[in-house]
């Protein structure tokens, strides 16, 4: 018997048709493992359909945080005989496949046949198959059955006791199988503190951050992969006093949210590229009326409908230049889950302060990725006194000309004044004007806010010391995977400059990049951040690692490409 030993880290992939419950296994397994003290990471890739096709989830169990997608698969659980070509490419000879006869990749040798279905049927039906598989992994790893039981109780909480009992039995049966599997040995240390770590997804991080930022209004139209934020806030609607409305279309969504903000709500929209395209006139209205708004865009590959359930960092330029006319904006792209929480919170505060649209660019990969984080990395600030809204007096002027361009903002019904906003060019009160001198003043006022905004730019995240010869430049969701790849000693001459605020850019950037060989890494076709660096700072980038087939970068892919970059 060949014994496969896994130390410190194990990469599991579960694949199957949409509707077979790949996601269920993922969420059960990651939760229970984390509660046992294992670091976990999970991400999924899936087709744009409800049943059939081939989806997969990757789960990494480890003894330190490894929060990045890997190509390598240690153990694959195929729930079905279909594989998408991109999954096939990741299966090596060493990959152990565990599953039922008929589901294995034809020529694969490293297989362990377990008839999950028959175990499940014994328990009462095929529906327990997933739980048995989860149980198997829980048995192979060192886990405490009481934790599993408690979790299962919570997970199926609303169902009757019979259901819960059956599922616990399924876990137990799976565990028994797992414990008896002697061909695989897993040595991963558990840590006490991890048990109380938080485990949530990118979607959760944005939605939680919104709540922390005081969000109490969201109007949006469903669109993958951004819908989860709306769903989350809907679920918390009563608890936190949030109006969460599904609009008839994206145009309505942004205009409703602007109305709400005008009336004093902290409001946001969530959408993806195609839906955002429809909001662009509204962005311009936001800029013209100086109404605070947070716009979350979960990016996915285009053009048009493109690949609805895949990932890409392709909307930066569209967002940057969205809306006719000149007005300031801020664009954030969170790097980690902690950061997603903090940035979103900050977005609301800055939108309010500067009275501008603040964008948060995530992507399918970011939103669908889960891993455990330490609770105190989430900074919950004093949310009470943040609002910049003032009470108006009788001669209130919504667009009063001020030195920094920011006019004190009141809302209707708060004070004796009137709050007048207009999409036409307007005077200080807000009434429409065709006086071209006032036009120039108002245009200048709006644009001049950029100076204040620039004082608050988030500096880039830097990894590695300053005397390395190479610097990677990247942004948003690629942070973890790049940082992980850089742990490899081969790359000790490469530092990382990762941007969380992609507009306006921090002015320390050119200094850091001076006399370095820059390697640009972006999950898009043309290197949009690279173009922006060129435009803003005249920085020329020769080495570019780009990808736009709808999948995120894997750690191996980054490593491979860095090797090429170092060589060439």
């Amino acid at each position, binding site marked *: 018997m060949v014994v496969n030993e896994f130390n410190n880290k194990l990469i599991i992939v579960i694949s199957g048709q949409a509707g077979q419950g790949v996601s269920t296994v993922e969420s059960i397994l990651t939760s229970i493992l984390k509660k046992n003290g294992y670091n976990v990471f999970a991400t999924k890739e899936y087709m744009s359909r409800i049943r059939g096709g081939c989806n997969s989830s990757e789960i990494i169990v480890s003894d330190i945080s490894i929060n990045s997608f890997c190509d390598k698969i240690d153990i694959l659980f195929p729930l079905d005989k279909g594989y998408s070509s991109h999954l096939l490419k990741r299966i090596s000879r060493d990959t152990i496949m565990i599953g039922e006869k008929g589901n294995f990749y034809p020529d694969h040798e490293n297989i362990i046949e377990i008839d999950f279905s028959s175990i499940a049927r014994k328990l009462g039906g095929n529906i327990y198959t997933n739980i048995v598989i989860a149980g198997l992994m829980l048995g192979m790893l060192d886990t405490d059955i009481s934790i599993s039981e408690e979790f299962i109780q919570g997970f199926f909480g609303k169902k009757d006791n019979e259901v819960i009992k059956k599922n616990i039995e399924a876990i137990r049966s799976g565990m028994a199988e797992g414990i008896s599997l002697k061909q695989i040995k897993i040595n991963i240390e558990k840590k006490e503190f991890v048990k109380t770590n938080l485990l949530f997804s990118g979607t959760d991080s944005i939605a939680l951050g919104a709540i*922390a930022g005081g969000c*109490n209004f969201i109007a949006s139209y469903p669109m993958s992969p951004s819908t989860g934020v709306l769903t989350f806030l809907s679920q918390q609607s009563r608890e936190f006093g949030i109006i969460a409305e599904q609009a008839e279309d994206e145009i309505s969504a942004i*205009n409703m949210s602007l109305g709400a903000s005008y009336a*004093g709500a902290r409001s946001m929209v969530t959408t993806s590229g195609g839906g955002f395209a429809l909001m662009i006139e509204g962005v311009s209205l936001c800029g013209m009326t100086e109404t605070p708004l947070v716009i979350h865009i979960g990016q996915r590959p285009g053009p048009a409908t493109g690949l609805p359930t895949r990932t890409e960092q392709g909307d930066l330029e569209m967002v940057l230049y969205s809306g006719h006319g000149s007005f300031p904006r801020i664009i954030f792209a969170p790097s980690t889950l902690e950061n997603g929480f903090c940035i979103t919170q900050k977005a609301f505060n800055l939108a309010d302060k500067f009275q501008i649209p603040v964008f948060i660019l995530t992507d399918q990969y970011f939103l669908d990725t889960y891993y455990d984080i330490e609770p105190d990395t989430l900074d*919950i600030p004093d949310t009470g006194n943040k609002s910049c*809204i003032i009470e108006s007096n009788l001669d209130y002027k919504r667009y009063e000309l001020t030195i920094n361009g920011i006019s004190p903002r009141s*809302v209707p019904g708060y004070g004796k004044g009137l709050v*007048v906003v207009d999409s036409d060019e307007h005077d200080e009160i*807000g009434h429409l004007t065709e006086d071209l001198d006032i036009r120039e003043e108002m245009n200048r006022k709006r644009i001049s806010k950029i100076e204040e905004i620039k004082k608050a730019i988030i500096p880039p995240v830097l990894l590695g010391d300053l005397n390395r010869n190479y610097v990677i430049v990247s942004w948003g969701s690629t942070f973890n995977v790049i940082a992980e790849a850089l742990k490899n000693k081969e790359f000790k001459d490469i530092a990382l400059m990762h941007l969380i605020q992609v507009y306006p850019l921090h002015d320390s950037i050119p200094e850091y990049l001076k006399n370095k060989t820059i390697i640009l890494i972006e999950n898009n076709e043309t290197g949009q951040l690279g173009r922006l660096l060129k435009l803003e700072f005249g920085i020329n980038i020769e080495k570019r690692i780009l990808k736009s087939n709808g999948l995120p970068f894997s750690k191996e892919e980054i490593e491979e490409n860095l090797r090429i970059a170092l060589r060439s």
Partner: protein
Amino acid sequence: MKPTRYDLGNIDIAWCPGCGNYSILNILKNALDELDISPENLVLVSGIGQAAKIPHYLKSNVFNGLHGRSIPPATGIKASNRNLVVIAESGDGCMYGEGGNHLLHAIRRNPDITVVIHNNMIYGLTKGQASPTSQIGFKTKIQKDGVSSEPFNAVALAISLNASFVSRAFSGDIDKSKEILKKAINHKGLSIVDMMHPCVSFNKVNTFSWFRENTYYLEEDFDYTDRLKAFDRAIGKDKLALGIFYINERNAFEDNLGIYRNNDLPLFRRIPDEDKLRKLIHSFE
């Protein structure tokens, strides 16, 4: 015109002399006055067009947004602060053309706002193209051979969507229209006032006297709770009926929102609950 507390004094009004919009402004101010709504508590929301300039001509809070998009912000405003009286006003092109989808779904959603459509059966500000309500055969520079699309019947449409309050008025009848408008504003839920008015500059067909000749009022005792009868009158072929066609009392959008069940405060007066947030975060352990 009797002075009201909404008067802005000596302002430059961009409407053409003789335009029906002046009467609508007058009707609006008087209706508000009689309902005793204070300017600080009033929000006028509009889109873009000649009609859509109306909020600039009286004392009120104003959200003058994009062409076709007056109803969504009005909905957002009312939902965020139920104490405000919110009126969306714009032209027929704005409300029925560019903004048709919002009208449709706002009627379904039923926020407690009043929607006044200045219906001059033409695009005024862009200089005289057909609007959705232009009659068949109506000729313009673009509709050279005359309009061939069925005119948009907002009253019939609203009834088909089971709207909460559906009415039609004519700018020429100041008093009657004022009464209709007052009822519309007082009505809880979305109220529609299709306010017909002549455009003296571009619509040479549907003139003041055309409206006089081609309209009549629903009987005093017309049963506006009968949806089918209302529809029958709405699609009447001979003359356009004026008055209140249909009232369907239902909960307003905001009142269905969970967030007002235990807390009456408008959103801007609320403070986020940190403890709850901490608890929520901990639930992810």
